[in-house]
């Protein structure tokens, strides 16, 4: 361990700790910086995190300094503040005054540091500024403004070290230096939008998010991506019922600091114009009152098969199984929604909760098998989520039968359903997903449910086997499901619950 003093405060940290991190610990906030990033190699080029270490004649960059026992460090004295101000000024002299049209405004490293260290008048002639190419599309997701770039090299290091794809470089010398792709190359890897996250200024911005919303108007909700079985932790940024973007949330056990571009775009499904917004039967819209009656009638006549899906939450699937009350239950199509995995985060399994089905002991079926089970079913078929009718064999088997479908989009299954009931998308409800590691992670509701959509579990609670003893709340549902599974589902930490820690002691008998 090393004991050191930072701004008069004594702290103790492990040997080998980076001084930058020790300063964050002591100060409660990071030193000013652009180029340092905990998940990338150290570049030491922005020169903002310089601190005074007693005994060293020059200021030293904290990101490239290891703590030593007995070190005395100053981060807020006149000399350090002056240096930070001078270096910040250097960053600004050729920086275009784009704030009014720049998406980064409100979450910009330059703006933030200027408010902290700057607040002076520019000394630079407008005509003296170096001009570079602006608003250049460099890939399907990313647009580059070379003038705004502060050449921190984070994006270059990311493409070299994290994705290993090396699309970006810094060309030329001196103040003619500029970031870019090589001629003939696009920034088109599946993690390109992470460079937008780590770009401290508005040099790299998202094409999808461009000019959509000022960031200070956004609210953030923590949730989980449902694009694949990895379950990257995310932050949903939204305003007035609309989601504008997803950003990764750091989780060392799951996704580190990153998420993939495919996952980022899954928010679009929430606002897709093909949303199922109200109950429907025979092509006509129904009120929930009428739909409820229809459902009661169908269920009263008997349900022969319940079909779930790996897209649904743990609580919903548990309740489906309970609603089945011994009748056959299928987890849905075994090989639906599979694709190519990549070397980083994207899993071949494009559903968020296959592990949840496993946990509940509910098996999935191949298309032919499912079709067979449908044909054998004595009564209606209730389908919760997914789109099994996209499989021709299943569609054929369902033809002519009574089908109740709870789903979010007007897909093939919704279209052939006798009764289609609008459920909530992943961003419109709370629920637990179990990722490929067996980790329980929580969805949180970010936006109000569209149209007449309802929480899926409440729709299931109308079914006869549940109705009489329906959970009063999601919490009650979690308690019941948790007791059954031997897990505490009501107190998940923000970073999720790992499988090893999931074996909570069974409390005696409380349901």
């Amino acid at each position, binding site marked *: 361990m090393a004991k050191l003093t930072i701004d008069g405060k004594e702290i103790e940290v492990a040997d080998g700790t980076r001084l930058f991190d020790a300063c964050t610990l002591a100060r409660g906030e990071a030193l000013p910086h652009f180029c340092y990033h905990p998940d990338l190699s150290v570049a030491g*080029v922005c*020169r903002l995190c310089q601190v005074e270490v007693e005994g060293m004649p020059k*200021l030293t960059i904290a990101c490239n300094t290891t703590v030593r026992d007995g070190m005395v460090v100053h981060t807020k004295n006149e000399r350090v503040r002056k240096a930070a101000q001078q270096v910040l000024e*250097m960053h600004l002299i050729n920086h275009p005054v784009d704030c009014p049209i720049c998406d980064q405004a409100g979450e910009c490293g330059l703006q933030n540091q200027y408010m902290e260290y700057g607040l002076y008048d520019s000394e630079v002639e407008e005509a003296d500024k*170096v001009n570079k190419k602006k608003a250049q599309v460099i890939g399907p997701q990313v647009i580059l403004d070379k003038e705004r770039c*502060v050449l921190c090299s984070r994006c270059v290091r990311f493409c070299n070290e994290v994705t290993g794809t090396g699309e970006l470089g810094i060309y*030329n*010398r001196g103040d003619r230096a500029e970031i870019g792709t090589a001629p003939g190359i696009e920034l088109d890897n599946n993690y390109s939008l992470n460079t937008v996250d780590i770009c401290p200024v508005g040099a790299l911005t998202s094409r999808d998010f461009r000019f959509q919303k000022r960031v200070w108007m956004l609210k953030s909700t923590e949730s989980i991506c449902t694009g694949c079985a990895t379950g990257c932790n995310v932050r949903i940024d939204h305003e007035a019922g609309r989601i504008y973007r997803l950003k990764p949330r750091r989780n060392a056990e799951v996704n580190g600091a990153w998420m993939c571009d495919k996952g980022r775009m899954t928010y679009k499904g929430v606002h897709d114009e093909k949303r199922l917004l109200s109950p429907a039967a025979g092509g006509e819209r129904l009120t929930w009152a009428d739909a409820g009656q229809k459902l009661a009638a169908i269920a009263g006549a008997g349900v022969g098969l319940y079909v779930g899906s790996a897209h649904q939450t743990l609580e919903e699937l548990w309740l489906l199984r309970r609603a089945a009350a011994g009748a056959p239950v299928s987890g849905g199509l075994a090989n639906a929604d599979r694709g190519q995995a990549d070397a980083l985060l994207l899993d071949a399994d494009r559903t968020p909760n296959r592990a949840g089905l496993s946990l509940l002991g509910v098996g999935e079926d191949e298309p032919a098998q499912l079709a067979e089970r449908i044909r054998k079913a004595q009564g209606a078929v209730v389908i919760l989520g997914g789109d099994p009718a996209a499989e021709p064999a299943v569609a054929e088997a369902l033809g002519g039968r009574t089908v109740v479908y709870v789903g979010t989009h007007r897909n093939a299954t919704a279209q052939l359903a006798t009764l289609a009931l609008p459920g909530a998308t992943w961003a419109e409800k709370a629920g637990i997903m179990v990722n490929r590691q067996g980790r329980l992670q929580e969805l949180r509701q970010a936006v109000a449910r569209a149209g007449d959509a309802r929480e899926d579990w409440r729709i299931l609670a109308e079914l006869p086997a549940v109705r009489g003893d329906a959970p009063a709340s999601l919490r009650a549902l979690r308690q019941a499901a948790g007791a059954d599974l031997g897990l505490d589902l009501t107190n998940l930490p923000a970073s999720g619950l790992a499988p090893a820690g999931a074996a909570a002691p069974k409390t005696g008998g409380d349901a």
Partner: protein
Amino acid sequence: MSPNDYRMLSARFGRNDGHKLAVYEAEGGYRALRTVLSGMKPVDVREQVKAAGLRGRGGAGFPTGVKWGFVPEGADQVYFFVNADESEPGTFKDRYLLDYDPHQTIEGTIISSYAVRSNLAFIYIRGEFGWLVDRVQKAVDEAYAAGYLGKNILGSGYDLEMIVHKGAGAYICGEETGLINSVAGRKGQPSIKPPFPAVSGFLGKPTIINNVESVASVPFIINDGVEAYRRNGTEKSPGTKLFSVSGPVKRPGVYEIPLGLPFRDFFNDWLGGMVEGEKLKAVIVGGSSVPVLPAEEIMNCNLDYESLGQAGTMLGSGGMIIIPESSDMVELIQVLMHFYFDESCGQCTPCREGTGWLHKIVKRLRKGEGTPEDLALIEHVCAGMAGLTICPLADAAVMPMRSFLAKFRPEFEALIQETAPAGPQSRWPRGEREN
């Protein structure tokens, strides 16, 4: 003391045959190598060079024997680089060494590589010396043929491969880690330190980089010994040093001088003073990156690290630039500021932006668009660069800029229009300056 008394480094300068192996051998060449490989251990070589007090001749003046000692004991792979990237304006001494006497450098390199236990040495020659790269390669080939390079040199069991590597036009590759990075196949941008090259350099292995003149000094130290080396020079600046002199003096060129030689004597006796019609105005004594001294100040200096340091400048590379009265100092500083602007690698912000900004301000001044604020602005920019960067290029730009302004301020002030409104001036509407 006359020029001909000092011919250790410059023995074969000006000749047309000094580059030949047979001539070099006949004049005592490769004797030092034989001495080293037939009975000295690497540590013995290091100790001898340390005792001689040889200081790095590229510009930093760091004791060579001490630098060699930084290589960790038991390193499995060590690399040795000879820095022949000579690009400091005013400096052309390494050129003479490689052009007239390549074998001296080669022999010195082999001994130095042995001293740090390296088996692969690079001679990094700037691309603009393309006209002599082939000649150096030929000398290296001769050395291989004679058994001075390759496996089991002179039956000693010591192996050394030598690669002549050509640069491609980047002053910053004269910085040690910039040089290493360019040989590693990257841009020649300096690396942050720590780690230091002696511990982790080329390919992550211990690496020693020495200037051409430094390694060329080694054979003499081995052949003639520490005392003979220290007979010239001063206590803290022993030995002889090459100075390359340019400007309107009667006898420009490359001189080998005993360190400590008074500038007055060097200028009057060796250089013959100014050419007819010119008067001495100022001297940049060690390459453009050291502070300029007006004539009256340099006349009181001795040419060694300490005396020049006390005078507020540095011995640097020994690239002496003689500035006549007929020169316009602001014009000269514009030339230099353009140089640093051109050569800044662009990696770290204060240098990248500051070198561009300084050049623009000086250019504006010379166009007659300067204002009274600009001189304070120049100092402001310099303060935002010096000591705040990865490598000393920012300081190399700041030192001439500050010294030209300090020593020749009236010439700058004369360019600022009398008609420019006095006091703080807005160039476009902006708010109150007093925050």
